[in-house]
């Protein structure tokens, strides 16, 4: 008998009799405006966020923050003269020197400031992790309250890879001192974009 069959039959003979699955029926108090909650939590986990009216405004803000000569790469809308557009023709290892990556999330979650990004919004899977600074644009209306709502939104949608990103990468492994920028981005900036 293969290990597979041995394991499955051992599990089967040892598992208790069938217990029905619990319904997730958790009521959550909506005490705070979702946008302000999202921005508050984002700040508490080391990110930065704000509401903006247009992509021009975003570009102005980013231009002030980052060296014009640094490599910027964007997935989704194009930023002529400011950031190169993602191209599938390169090897992901060539993303090593990307200073700023600009990506667009499907939605954000207010309770933990996570944003949901599927592979098609990343260009390469490695991009949101390998860049030094991550910029995420979220439509202002697309904020849900909790992770329960998040998975309701995700439902049975297809993706090959997707991730929740909450703030910059971080570690506290050295004497519990929080350091932003472990292996992924050192900073994460979110823009809640008003409907254009």
């Amino acid at each position: 008998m293969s290990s597979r069959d041995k394991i499955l039959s051992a599990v089967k003979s040892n598992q208790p009799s069938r217990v029905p699955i619990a319904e997730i029926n958790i009521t959550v108090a909506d005490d705070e405006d979702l946008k302000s909650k999202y921005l508050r939590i984002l700040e508490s986990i080391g990110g930065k966020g704000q509401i903006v009216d247009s992509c021009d405004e975003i570009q102005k803000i980013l231009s002030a923050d980052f060296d014009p000569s640094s490599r910027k790469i964007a997935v989704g809308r194009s930023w002529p003269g400011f950031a190169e557009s993602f191209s599938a023709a390169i090897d992901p290892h060539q993303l090593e020197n990307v200073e700023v990556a600009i990506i667009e999330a499907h939605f954000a979650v207010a309770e933990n400031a996570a944003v949901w990004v599927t592979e098609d919004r990343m260009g390469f899977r490695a991009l949101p992790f390998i860049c030094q600074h991550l910029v995420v644009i979220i439509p202002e209306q697309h904020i849900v309250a909790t992770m329960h709502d998040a998975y309701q939104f995700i439902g049975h949608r297809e993706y090959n890879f997707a991730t929740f990103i909450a703030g910059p990468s971080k570690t506290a492994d050295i004497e519990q001192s929080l350091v932003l920028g472990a292996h992924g981005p050192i900073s994460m900036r979110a823009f809640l974009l008003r409907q254009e």
Partner: protein
Amino acid sequence: MVNHADLSEKFNVDEPRVNWHDETLWWVRQKRDRAAKQIPEWEELRSVASSIKDNVLSNLSEYLAEFEKNAKQNGVHVHWAADADEHNQIVLEIIQSHGIKSIVKSKSMLTEECHLNPFLIKNNIEVVDTDLGERIVQLAEEPPSHIVLPCIHWKKEEIGDLFHKHLGTPAGNADPIFLTRAARAHLRKYFLSAKLAMTGVNFAIASTGEFVVCTNEGNADMGAHLADVHIACMGLEKIIPERKHLGVFLRLLARSATGQPITSYSSHFRKPAEGQEMHIVIVDNGRSRQLGRLDFRNSLKCIRCAACFNTCPVYRRSGGHSYHTAIAGPIGSILAPNLDMRNYADLPFASTLCGSCSNVCPVKIDIHQQLYKWRQVLVEEGYVTKEKSVAMKTMSSVLSNPSKYRLAGRLGRWILRNAPFLAKNRWNLWFKHREMPEAPKNSFREWYLENKVNKK
């Protein structure tokens, strides 16, 4: 044979350091409390999580088969390992079939449990742990002492010295930001050159065949997305039925672990990227046996948050290495005897049974009750030292017989008052590190009877 009491004694030689260890972990526990209090529905979440796991355990073989079918349909290779050796062999074969000599690995307690690193090194494969804490203990040639905070027992000055020796950082620099940046640069080289990356699995979804990996550092993603081959290893209890159940577990996991609302990354791997190869190794290693132990099967609900470690007064003051097993702390003390009763018979006794672990556990495992039950099993099966087993048997006989109990009480009080040296000596293990109380003349019962009579 090593045991928890001796190893803790070693850890306790340096008292200020033990206090520091204790306070650091308590601080993490307090962060957990603050995070939990911000969620009014916290207790409801714990109950739902626990009952989802009840369903999972009762339907595990079906969910595993469903997961396998869906993962295969997604183009992922699925392997099954009955024990640690088979797991290690499977991993080695995948590595060797690609002619690879060096791999990167993100945190996986399962690979610690299987002692994968020494096995690969013996087979001339270089393994680089990429979680900062794990890299630190790896450079120091130690196992992690905590499942979430692998080097919680290390001081920053010592890490500075270690990095000076291995990474060439300036001597005497112990600044956490500086050291983290040095590790970032050091490990980036490995991420960029590794052809194969290993990760653990936090949750595997039966209905979609995808699996979720949670990290703060981004190291699992850096490894997996830059390598040609990704191997993810999971214990067979990691299954949950559907995506929507992640909503419950992801709300609980990071809050229970470190007090964060969620980890920086919760990555959902469903299909390999173009040109990439993805493997999942599903490991039993005693889990199906534990499932059959009525009293202990709930330990398989564990989501490895380590809240029970951080709150445990014994763990905080004895350190992870005193448990001499990959998964230390209260939950480790339930899991280890299932693997080897003889070697780990000491662990269920490394607890005050105060119940704090059960109170914080996000999936409501009755941890302290299971520890208590393991003690009975281990005494019965003859795995406990003579002194302890005699003491336990005597105690249970005394406690179950009222007149013996009264006699024992009178005797004890008499000894403490008239012949204290009989109790305060080095043969009485209870007296070690404890002050014996001044004994009152009467027991509570005697006092009560007397006063009742007097009042009448």
